[in-house]
């Protein structure tokens, strides 16, 4: 269990004047729409259980209104749960006093927002230093540390601009630098890139991934976009009406969607670009072919195999042979997405 950073257990959130007495109804299985119709309360979260692994990117995905923002705000207690528990590094967030909670927010978990939430009257450098100034770190040191983060998100030269003078993408770089500057090891990102144009969004995803390679934060990333979820997520949890429908790795969700809702979610993606050869690995002595690494995606493997003219490939990991993959299995695995002919809209 020691590699679990954040553990969310049996979390319920009900919005309304008499939330506490509604929990039992929900536990007995009352649906979100019934609760609203019969009792005028909104079901925000319905028995959510998620274990976020240390230094991984945990994506939480769902359509608008599924409770994503509500969920992520429980982790730093911007929203109080109706029932349940949230454990971070063994500490129960809900038992913290106001002072302890402030300390937790200052040094343990920082947040990036969909609408950036920058201080419009402060320059970029002062925005990045905001978390540090709240901690009471002296101005000189705060600015020095902020400068480092401004550089790492590629904003050098814009230190003295005001947020309103920057494009959306650049504003969110400020938001990211501000969150990183506190050295918190948990990063909460609520649709952080959803307000950005597709190209800029993709840039920002790359920025985040390359920072994560060096920083190894525990990141909880909210999105409604499957492409983004697949690109960033080590683990993905899918939310509907406040309940987790399925959680696991991208591969697991794609290979074994839990229900129609999930199937619907993933139907348009090009599996060849998501699934790795390891997911269809077998041990078949008859297969001869080129050696490929276990984390190669099927699309690339198909290319290699077909060029070599063989019936499959040998899978290696750290230089050792660990299995084989046949051409047929690979084609079978991606079969359903090949029905989808307009290949321009597929996952990349």
């Amino acid at each position, binding site marked *: 269990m020691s590699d679990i950073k954040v553990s969310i257990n049996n979390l319920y959130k009900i919005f309304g004047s008499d939330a506490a007495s509604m929990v039992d109804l929900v536990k007995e299985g009352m649906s979100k729409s019934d609760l609203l119709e019969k009792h005028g309360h909104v079901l925000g979260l319905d028995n959510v259980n998620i274990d976020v692994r240390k230094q991984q990117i945990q994506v939480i995905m769902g359509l608008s209104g599924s409770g994503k923002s509500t969920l992520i705000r429980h982790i*730093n207690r*911007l929203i109080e749960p109706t029932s349940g528990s949230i454990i971070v590094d063994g500490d129960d967030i809900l038992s913290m006093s106001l002072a302890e*909670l*402030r*300390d*937790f*927010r*200052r*040094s343990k978990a*920082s*947040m990036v*927002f969909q*609408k*950036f*939430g*920058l*201080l*419009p*009257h402060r320059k970029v450098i002062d925005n990045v230093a*905001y*978390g540090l*100034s*709240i*901690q009471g770190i002296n101005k000189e040191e705060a600015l020095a540390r902020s400068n480092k983060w401004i550089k790492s998100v590629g904003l050098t030269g814009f230190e003295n601009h*005001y*947020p*309103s*003078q920057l*494009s*959306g993408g650049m*504003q969110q770089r400020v938001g990211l630098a*501000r969150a990183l500057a*506190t050295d918190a090891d948990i990063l*909460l990102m609520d649709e952080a890139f959803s*307000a*950005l*144009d597709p190209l800029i969004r993709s840039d920002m995803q790359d920025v985040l991934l390359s920072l994560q390679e060096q920083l190894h934060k525990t990141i909880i990333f909210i999105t409604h976009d499957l492409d983004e979820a697949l690109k960033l997520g080590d683990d993905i949890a899918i939310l509907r009406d406040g309940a987790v429908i399925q959680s696991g790795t991208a591969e697991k969700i794609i290979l074994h969607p839990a229900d129609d809702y999930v199937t619907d979610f993933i139907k348009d993606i090009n599996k060849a670009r998501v699934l790795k050869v390891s997911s269809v690995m077998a041990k078949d002595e008859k297969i001869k072919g080129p050696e490929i690494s276990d984390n190669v995606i099927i699309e690339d493997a198909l290319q290699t195999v077909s060029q070599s003219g063989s019936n499959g490939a040998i899978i290696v990991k750290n230089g050792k042979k660990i299995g084989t993959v046949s051409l047929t299995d690979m084609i079978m695995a991606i079969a359903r997405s090949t029905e989808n002919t307009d290949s321009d809209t597929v996952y990349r």
Partner: protein
Amino acid sequence: MSLLTEFPKMGRTDLRDFKKAIDESFRDFTRNYGEAIENFFDPLLYFLVWLEKLFLNTPWPIIMAVIALLVYFGSRSIKLTIGAIIAFLLIGYLDMWEDTMATLAIISVATIVCISVGIPIGILMARSNRTQTVVTPILDIMQTIPSFVYLIPVVMLLGIGKVPGLLAVCIYAIPPIVRLTNLGIRLVDKDVMEASEAFGASYKQKLLDVQIPLALPNIFAGVNQTIMMALSMVVIASMIGVKGLGVPVLRAISNQYLALGVMNGLAIVVLAILFDRVSQSFGKRLQAHRESGHNV
């Protein structure tokens, strides 16, 4: 039938006793606490007198220069600065310098009082809905009740003089600054507030780093309105012993001096316009970066 044609009213003696009881008890209150209250306001009186003397004893060219500088740095407009200089030269030339200085003194003190009392009240109002529900009707009363009505208890309590005049001006002029401080803070972008909260800001940090700076344009609009309203009270204040441009206006009314009344009235208007233009363009500059730009 007479019940319908004639409103059922309190008996004549009862009514008289009722009013008398109120008057008596307020008089008692005055007798017991009047002096203490007067002493309480003494520092304000000294300050007002000191400021008046300062304005009057400073050689006029220096005052002119200070006004010109303030106007220029407030508005960054050469035109307005020249306009202000000409206006004050005319005021002096038409023998209204001393009254104008006295008016400026009381307006300045009233504004300082209103700001230092009004902004904290506005902040408290923004912090709790209950405070808002209590304070709002009081502000409504202060703004709508005819000034003469609250002049009565003020004069009963403090007599005729500068302090009761100042108090009357402040009662009338304080509501806008309270209201706009409250409004400004409540209108601060929720997303920015949430970010501040998420980074662990304390109440004081949120107030000083986020709410007040972002509400500043609104607070400033409140200051502007407060000054305007204080100016409009100048004549009434002079009825209870405040020196300034109101005094000749009063004299003009009772003696039917048309020219005197119009001239001093116009001097008040000139002050109002100057305050307004300067503070508005200053307020606009405050606004510059404060609108959160999500221009994605």
